[in-house]
């Protein structure tokens, strides 16, 4: 069977009355939450070292010394956890023509007039932006992070390079926190989304409203024979 265009091979319609659609398998949900946990811990420990007014956050980790050594280790966990997610997600996050229309009509998105927008596959342009922004920023953060990892890579780069690395690391960190806020906000604002990452399923209405091409493809595949 050829690889579907708008869905993952594992996505399927679970029940018909009412319609529920499986969007994320257990594996990727675990993968996502490990990444999320790492990102939140990195955010807290990193902010503690970013601004003196947030230094008290080191208390959550058992003091400044612990925060200093644990931050980069969580960073490595996040990198590999995200990498695993990346290989599962990148294909459906490639740009498609309808993304341009979606971005051009961003006003309708914000106003909730999705009937005026083109039908979309598994991800809209906003979700794709989050995915690629996260991907790029995580690479920037791990590369610059290793350069300033005093404990194991103290002499890896020269001091002038290290200065640039620490500046880029903090700018990328600010950027990824903004992306993170957008990600969480969008998931909550678009009601019915969170359950995709908790239970793994969404309602048929949700799929119809936000990702109709994806739903059509799953419905078509169901007609044509075994989904597996």
């Amino acid at each position, binding site marked *: 069977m050829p690889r579907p265009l708008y869905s993952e091979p594992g996505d399927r319609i679970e029940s018909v009355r009412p319609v529920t659609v499986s969007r994320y398998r257990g594996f990727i949900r675990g993968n996502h939450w490990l990444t999320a946990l790492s990102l939140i811990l990195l955010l807290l420990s990193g902010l503690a070292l970013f601004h003196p007014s947030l230094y008290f956050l080191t208390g959550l980790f058992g003091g400044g010394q612990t925060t200093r050594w644990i931050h980069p280790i969580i960073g490595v966990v996040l990198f590999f956890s995200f990498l695993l997610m990346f290989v599962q997600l990148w294909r459906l996050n490639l740009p498609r023509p309808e993304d341009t229309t979606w971005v051009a009509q961003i006003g309708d998105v914000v106003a909730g007039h999705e009937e005026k927008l083109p039908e979309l596959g598994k991800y809209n342009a906003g979700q794709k932006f989050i995915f690629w922004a996260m991907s790029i920023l995580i690479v920037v953060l791990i590369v610059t992070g290793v350069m300033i990892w005093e404990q194991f890579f103290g002499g890896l780069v020269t001091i*002038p390079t*290290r200065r640039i690395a620490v*500046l880029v690391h903090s*700018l990328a960190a600010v950027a990824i926190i903004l992306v993170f806020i957008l990600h*969480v906000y969008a998931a909550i604002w678009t009601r019915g989304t969170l359950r995709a990452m908790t239970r793994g399923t969404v309602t048929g209405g949700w799929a*119809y409203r936000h990702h109709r091409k994806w739903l059509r493809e799953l419905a078509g595949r169901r007609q044509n024979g075994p989904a597996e």
Partner: protein
Amino acid sequence: MTETAPQPTTAAANPPVQPIGSNLLPSDVVRISATKDVPQPDRQLTKVAKLIDVSKCIGCKACQSACIEWNDTKPEVETNVGVYENPHDLTPNMFTLMRFSEWVNPETDNLEWLIRKDGCMHCEDPGCLKACPAPGAIVQYSNGIVDFIHENCIGCGYCVTGCPFDIPRISKVDHKSYKCTLCSDRVAVGQGPACAKACPTQAIVFGTKEDMIAHANDRIEDLKSRGYDNAGIYDPQGVGGTHVIYVLHHADKPQIYDGLPENPRISPVVEGWKGVTKTAGLAVMGVAAVGAAIHGLFARANRVDEHEEQAAERLVQADAPATAPHDRGDV
């Protein structure tokens, strides 16, 4: 211990026999890392300086030995690789290091052996302190001494990033940063630094900064009379001046002294990181987080309605395989 020590004006004086109280107090601190609005002390200590006259140094390393002795550090025994530096670099256990450079003077074609005692310069505007994220890990006293308070140090290495002279070293044992203290613990009890006390040629002297500048000028005059036309003082103004100053016979070329920077200053990259990035970054993140929370609470959510659930059922149950250009206005 009723009496406090006088402020030292020389390294030559011997310690008093009676126990004596410290005269370098927590209240004499004028700058504290990662701390805004440090209350300024009631008294201003006399600014001190250590003067290193490179032209008088014979490279005996008595200063290094005295430093190890006083600070009770144990630098590792290394391998002789055919150079005079020993150890090969500053380490968490070696706060000062004689750096030897062989330089051929293009004017005279003479080989000159330049020996510079390297170590913390005790900048008036310390880059280490500016970069440090840990409140109270680096302090500056009103007499100009920049000191690391190790119980507050977290070992992140930001001081290394901030320092224009490549001085701090992070210990692999306790993960704390170490450098010359200008013997703050000796100065506190009226004594000059151990290196200055031990120097057999008085190439290292210690006293008030004013006295040291005057002494340096005498030395420069003497050197000029001996043909060192470019003799001069190294008290770089890019870091607000330093509390360790050099007399150099070739002050127009500080780099020949094993890379002494010509115009040291806190890197603009570090200033940008600890300035606008830190402040604006926090503000942007704060506004985004609060804005998203408020908007999330009060704005109308994007909800799926019952018609869409029904439409989904019709779509899924339709017999024919889905045809792509379906009319999307049929809800």
